[in-house]
């Protein structure tokens, strides 16, 4: 009885909660329009203007303008996006991968051609960003943002002028206070530039030896003691909270971090870095193509593009939007880096599956270190003991079982 009572109380409270939640969600949104369709958008985190801090809530604006529900989810890396598209049979309508991933998806037939009749705002996109290597005839993608990788550091922990490039990340003086990208391409690219002789991170393929050398370089970061942690979005907490001293990251995000912590400053790395263009595409698993093109068109609207650029602080390929931006934005080095730097920059190209797997595999080794032969032998011995001991015990149990049955039968 007591259990039934507690069960009933549990159910009552739970159903009460369930009943309340739809109500609270609705009253908060007030007059929620009835949607006549939906669009599934898959984008980087913190990559659209959310409407906090006085900006424009782009998603809400789209929903109220067109009456189409936006299902907005995030991915952290291009690799995650690719894995999800390939392995999970999910359907997305708009995705926003980086250049090399667009190339890969396009070559593997995973993108749909865009109907530019439905995207008239495409005229706002700067010519410089059209017909890039990753989409030579610009049939599959519409540029969304562009940027490069720079370094952010805490001026209270590292004096100004000490940092000039990526190589300073390896300086053992900065014990346990340097962060690094937690994805194989970006991390290995930085390591490759610093190898001796340097490897071009923008090339179309890498030999096993190249990858090995880059991995060794990354392991040096760990062994030298300067590495604190491999991070992606966690870098915001770490730098804004003054918990780490130095990190490479995407220029636009560095601007955001600097806004939130006045002790931070940036450095344009002297070695040059990755110049990337993120573009909007429609994957072949799309179920709402018209809505997808409508969304893409909407994002190219000058005011919308300007709102997004203002929030994420990445370069915008949209010339009409650029005219709406303020002085600070147009003159910022993080948005408009000096020409000598851009010349040293490289762009990622699509690499083949095998090389890519090799890179990811080696990256895990860079993260965790290489296993020495001692551990390998130890684990094999342990495994052997476990298997033999288990077999012995099982055999003993069976023998005991047979003996017991015999004894019972005698009785």
């Amino acid at each position, binding site marked *: 009885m*007591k259990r039934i009572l507690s069960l009933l109380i*549990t159910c009552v409270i739970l159903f009460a909660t369930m009943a309340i939640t739809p109500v609270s969600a609705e009253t908060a949104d007030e007059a929620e329009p009835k949607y006549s369709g939906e669009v599934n958008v898959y984008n980087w985190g913190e990559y659209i203007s959310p409407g906090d801090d006085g900006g424009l809530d782009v998603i809400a604006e789209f929903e109220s303008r067109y009456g189409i529900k936006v299902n907005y989810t995030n991915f952290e890396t291009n690799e995650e996006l690719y894995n999800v598209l390939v392995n999970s049979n999910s359907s997305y309508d708009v995705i926003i991968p980086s250049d090399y991933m667009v190339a890969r998806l396009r070559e593997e037939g995973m993108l749909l051609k865009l109907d530019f009749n439905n995207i008239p705002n495409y005229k706002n996109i700067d010519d410089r960003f059209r017909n890039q290597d990753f989409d030579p005839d610009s049939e599959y993608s519409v540029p969304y943002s562009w940027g490069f990788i720079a370094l952010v550091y805490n001026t209270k922990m590292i004096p100004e002028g000490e940092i000039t490039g990526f190589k300073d990340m390896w300086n053992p003086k900065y014990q346990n206070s340097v962060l690094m990208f937690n994805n194989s391409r970006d991390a290995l690219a930085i390591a490759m530039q610093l190898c001796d002789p340097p490897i071009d991170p923008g090339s179309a393929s890498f030999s096993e030896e190249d990858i090995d050398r880059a991995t060794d370089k990354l392991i040096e970061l760990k062994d030298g003691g300067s590495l604190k942690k491999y991070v992606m979005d*966690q870098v*915001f907490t770490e730098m804004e909270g003054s918990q780490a001293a130095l990190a490479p990251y995407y220029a636009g995000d560095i601007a955001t971090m600097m806004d939130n912590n006045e002790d931070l400053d940036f450095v344009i790395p002297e070695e040059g870095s990755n110049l990337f263009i993120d573009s909007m595409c429609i994957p072949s698993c799309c179920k709402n193509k018209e809505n997808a093109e409508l969304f893409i068109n909407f994002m190219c609207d000058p005011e919308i593009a300007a709102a997004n650029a203002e929030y994420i602080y990445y370069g915008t390929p949209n010339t009409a939007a650029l005219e709406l931006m303020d002085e600070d934005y147009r003159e910022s080095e993080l948005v408009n880096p000096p020409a000598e730097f851009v010349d040293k920059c490289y762009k990622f190209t699509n690499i083949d599956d095998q090389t890519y797997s090799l890179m990811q595999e080696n990256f895990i080794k860079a993260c965790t270190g290489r296993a020495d032969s001692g551990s390998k032998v130890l684990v094999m011995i342990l495994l052997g003991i476990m298997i033999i001991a288990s077999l012995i015990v099982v055999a003993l149990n069976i023998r005991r079982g047979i003996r017991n049955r015999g004894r019972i039968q005698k009785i």
Partner: protein
Amino acid sequence: MKKPGQKIYLIIIMAFLYAPILYLIAYSFNNGKTSVWKGFTWKWYEALFRDAQIMGSLKNTLTIALLAAIIATILGTLAAIGIYNFKGGVRSAIQNISNIPIINPEIVTGVSLMLLFTFAGTMLGFEMGFWTVLLAHIGFCTPYVILNVTPRIRQMDSSLYEAALDLGCSPVKAFFKVVIHELMPGILSGFLISFTYSLDDFVITYFTRGARFQTLPVQIYTMTHQRINPKANALSAIMFVTILTLLIISNIVTSRKDKEAAR
């Protein structure tokens, strides 16, 4: 009767267990995102309730937990009865296999189910989501139901069922009036355990949810693994209060029944 040393030790351990949670709750009222106190505010709670994604996840979690618990209980009770009637060696083999989801590390179960669903998904053309999560949850809840019901079956007097038949009940009626009634405590505790495990499951749900289906534990992961998010603090506070209330109520009810029984 307890020495002061024992009491102090108990208090220290309790403090250790509760301090982090209380810290979370205290800072859910902080008007800032760092550990620096910037003033009292309810804004994170407001943000929490306005967040449609979190509310959606909560609904998903409750739905899955309820459905999984109900189906697992029915499936498990029937299974426990049937398995009991197998003979020695076969019975223990079946019981061992049935216990695999319990003893296997969650990550192995999660990964193996992901392999199954991805393979089946490509063959049969479906997407991982609500149904795969539900199936996975039923999979790991049912063994717990069986574990809870089987001891009751052992204690039950099987002649009761036959007596009911002799007295003129149809087999179905006898089944419900006698067997289910006898097994009820085990069935209920199995149901509660299933519900609890399903509610809080993260690892298995993470691997079987596909790309978009969110339950609350998965949502919490998204909220907390990237940036500090005080909405998570607010959520903890609400969960804590709910759990404490439920447990206190159940405790009071139990002790009242015990007192009555003792009289």
